[in-house]
Structures are given as structure tokens and as C-alpha cells.
């Protein structure tokens, strides 16, 4: 139904997180930006976590082998359908013989392409999401290559045409402010380091993977002897190894780790982690856990009006 001709830097099939297997060391995976995935799925009549394409830095092209209904969200520069500009955040009805091209992106990092009824993918440990390190889910657990043929689960044609309301379209910039809570080992930071963590600007490191992103800035010195016992970590955890450069963990986050957990990105802003690109400016805004949950409820309410009508 869709044949990949250029996968770009890394394109994978991603859907729901692989919940409930962390005690076997199996990470969540799933869309790095779960909100953009949900928005794409909404436009093609799917539920929020159906399997879609996650494209990294754009530069993706595919031939359409059969009529299908798709939508593109997340980081966008230009979308071309057989050479003609097409809108993001809009249901697109493609015909057999069309080709779709997603240009390289300059803001944000990941683009989502959903098809009506979702893409077929292998299920492993309760999810179809691709986890590359262990080759789980997706298409043979690997990133997509030119020539890969993707099929939809059911009929890929949907007759409705929707647009994400303007007020619900995330805007990506090269400067992000992320709400964050203190975590289990924040107290290992002295007053000056703690102030730095929650008030100064960091830059995203060069290796922005689905596992984690380094926060480059003034280095921190948690009062730790490097002998901490390995403890649970999650997407959103900010660890600080002895090098003093904190690392924020993303959707493919390891399940346990032994570096001090100095902060945790609030649930309401975790979807933004998937859009951090190397060099982006990042500031953490400290919230109490209860305030952060209120922020989540507020954001959820706003989004659900569109996502779950």
C-alpha cells in the first residue's frame, strides 16, 4: 500500500508504549512524541496509539501503491504529494501512483504519518512499537529501508476530512521550556547546582536518540560516590553521571540505572522530549508534583476536547 523509497535518517513504526515489562528490562518504546502520534491518528479516524510511522528529521519519501487516507503531524517543514504542496494536520486522501515526500525539518525532530486503521506491525510483549536495540515490534524490529512495503491493518480509505484545530497544533521552536519535578536524588545537589538545574539554560547534546538526550551546560556535581544502587528510571527521568552532564531519558529509556536521579520531566511535557533536536535550548521549570499533575489535567482536558470527542 505504501512503499518506502527514502527512509531518511531513521524511520520506524511506533504505536503504544510497551507497558508492564520494565521489570524484565524491557523499555516502553512507542512514539517519542505521543501527542503528535495521537493527533495524526485522530485525523484518519484511528484511536490515539495505533501504529504509525515515526520519521526522524524528515527527508522521507514513499510511493503510494493503493488508495489510502493519511495525515502528517509533528515536526513539519514541507509535505509534497506528487510534487504538490500539501498541508500538515489535515486528512489527506492519496491515490495509487501518488508519492509523498516529507522535507527535512528545521524545528522539532520527529514527524508522524498515520494511515487509516494503522500500519501492520509485529507485536512483541504487548505492543507493535519498534525497539531497535532488541529488534522488537515494527517491521522485523528494525528501522525502515528503501523498498519496504507497509500495509494497513484494515481498509486504508476513510472518507472524512478533518483538520486539527489551530489551537491544538503544537508549535516547535529551538528553545524549549519543560516543566520538571525534583526527584529521588535531587538532594545530592548543593544549593548552587540546584539553582543552575532549574534556572539556567542547557543545550541538547549531539546524540539526540530515542533513549536519551544530554543536557550540555554548566556541569553539576551531585554529592555521590558512584556507588549508588541501581534504581528504577523512566522516560522523563534526568540522571546525572559523575561527568556532571545530565541526561534526560526518552521513550526507549532503560528501566533501571545507578546515576543520581536529579529531576523528572513532568508528564504533561514529556511529549515534547521527542521533538528536541541537537543544539536546542532547554530550560527546566520546577513544579511541585501536585502542581505538575494539575498542569497535566488541564492540558489533557484541552486536548481531549479534540482527541476524544
Amino acid at each position, binding site marked *: 500500500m505504501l512503499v518506502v523509497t527514502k527512509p531518511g535518517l531513521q524511520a520506524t513504526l511506533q504505536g503504544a508504549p510497551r*507497558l*508492564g515489562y*520494565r*521489570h*524484565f*528490562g*524491557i*523499555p516502553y518504546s512507542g512514539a517519542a512524541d505521543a501527542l503528535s502520534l495521537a493527533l495524526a491518528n485522530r485525523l484518519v479516524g484511528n484511536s490515539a496509539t495505533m501504529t504509525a510511522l515515526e520519521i526522524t528529521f524528515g527527508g522521507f519519501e514513499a510511493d503510494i501503491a493503493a488508495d489510502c487516507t493519511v495525515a502528517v503531524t509533528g515536526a513539519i517543514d514541507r509535505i509534497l504529494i506528487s510534487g504538490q504542496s500539501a498541508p500538515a494536520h489535515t486528512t489527506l486522501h492519496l491515490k495509487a501512483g501518488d508519492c509523498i515526500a516529507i522535507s527535512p525539518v528545521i524545528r522539532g525532530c520527529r514527524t508522524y504519518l498515520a494511515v487509516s486503521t494503522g500500519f501492520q506491525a509485529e507485536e*512483541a510483549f504487548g505492543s507493535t512499537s519498534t525497539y531497535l*536495540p*532488541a*529488534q*522488537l515490534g515494527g517491521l522485523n*524490529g528494525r528501522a525502515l529501508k528503501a523498498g519496504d512495503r507497509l500495509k494497513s491493518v484494515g481498509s486504508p480509505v476513510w472518507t472524512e476530512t478533518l483538520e486539527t484545530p489551530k489551537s491544538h497544533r503544537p508549535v516547535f521552536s529551538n528553545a524549549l521550556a519543560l516543566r520538571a*519535578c525534583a*526527584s*529521588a536524588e535531587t538532594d545530592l545537589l548543593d544549593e548552587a547546582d540546584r539553582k543552575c538545574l532549574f534556572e539556567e539554560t542547557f543545550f541538547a547534546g549531539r*546524540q539526540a536518540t530515542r*533513549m536519551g538526550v544530554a543536557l550540555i551546560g554548566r556541569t553539576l556535581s551531585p554529592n555521590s*560516590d*558512584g*556507588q*549508588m*544502587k*541501581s*534504581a*528504577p528510571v*523512566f522516560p*522523563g*527521568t534526568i540522571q546525572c*553521571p*559523575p*561527568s556532571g*552532564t545530565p541526561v534526560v531519558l526518552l521513550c526507549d529509556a*532503560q*528501566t*533501571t*540505572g*545507578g*546515576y543520581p*536521579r536529579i529531576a*523528572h520531566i*513532568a*508528564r504533561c511535557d514529556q511529549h515534547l522530549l521527542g521533538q528536541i533536536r541537537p543544539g536546542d535550548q532547554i530550560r527546566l521549570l520546577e*513544579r511541585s*508534583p*501536585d502542581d*505538575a*499533575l494539575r498542569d*497535566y*489535567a488541564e492540558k*489533557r482536558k484541552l486536548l481531549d476536547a479534540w482527541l476524544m470527542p
Partner: protein
Amino acid sequence: MPARLIPTRIADDVFELQVRTPGEAQSLAAVLREVAPAEDVVAGLDRVAIRFHPSRAHQVERALRDVTAENKTTPGTAPPIEIGISYGGENGPDLTSVCEALNLSTDAFIASHTQRVHTVEMIGFTPGFSYISGLPEEFSVPRLASPRPRVPAGSVGVSTRFTGIYALHGPGGWPLIGKTDAKLFRANDKNPFLLTPGQRVKFRAL
């Protein structure tokens, strides 16, 4: 009567309980998986984290009120599983520095590592990565200051008296002492994990 545990909030959507031993952590996590309306319950070596959906904060907090720390795991009785390790050299690039830090010859280190019976305490980090206890107190080695971006699958590391086996290729922060051919994770097997908590292990030098 075991003491009640006081939950710490380590994120807006995560509670954590501190316990004393890996066995207590495993037992408590198993109980919490039954009683707490959580999205995920994950044991560390001396703590258990409970991640919950934001709408469930109060129910989870209530469920945590009545739990206590008790080790209900039973010591493994099955004979130890043998794991061959090729120590040092390219396979264990940190063996020399680890031995220097411990003031031991590499032979003495390998002898000590292979003579003991070790115990799998926890699976975590990445699929199949096993935390294996059994090194004596004086073998405490810190993690690397910066994790390595690429550790080959099968690499064996030591840290804080644990031996860890990297089941998959990926980043890692433990000093590496050797490598094994044993496959700790086979995604498509009925039993995907070679090791499980409680299992005893003997290492053999290849």
C-alpha cells in the same frame, strides 16, 4: 512486625519505596503489582517505584499505606547455571584498571570471580541485563564517570559488588571485565530470559 514504608514522590506520577535488600524489593514489587492500580511497578536493588496514571494518584497512595517490606523470595535450590567468560583483553577493556583499583592481580581477580557462587538479584536496564551479586565487600568498583556509547552484547561488567551482563549491544556505564557467548535474551523464545531473579550462577574462565 515489619515496619510500614513511607512513599517518596520522585516525579509527579511516580512514588518510590525504599527497602533494604534486592529480595525485599522483588517481593514488594510482586505484591504491589497485585494491589496497586499502577501503570508499572519496577524494583531496583533497594527500592520499588510505582508509576501511576495521573488520575490514580490518590488510589495508589492509599494502596501504598498498608504494604510492608518482607523478603518472601526463597533462595534458589537449583544447581547454579554456568556462564563462560573470556576475561580481559579486547573483551574486557577495563579489567586491568579494575584490578589496579582493587590492588589485585588479574589472575587473583579471575580466581575469585570464578570460585564463588553468585545470585541473580534483578533483571533491568535493558532486556535481559542481569544484576548478579556475589562479589565480596572489598570488590566494590564505581561506575565509569561517563557511560560508553557502545557496549557489545555479551559484555560482562562489574560495579558496586555486582556483576552485570549486557544482553544487548548499547550504551553502558559499568567497567567491563570480559565477555560471554551466553544469550541472555531471545525475544522469540517461549522463555525469552536465560536468567531470573533468585537463580544461582557460576562463572567459568574461557
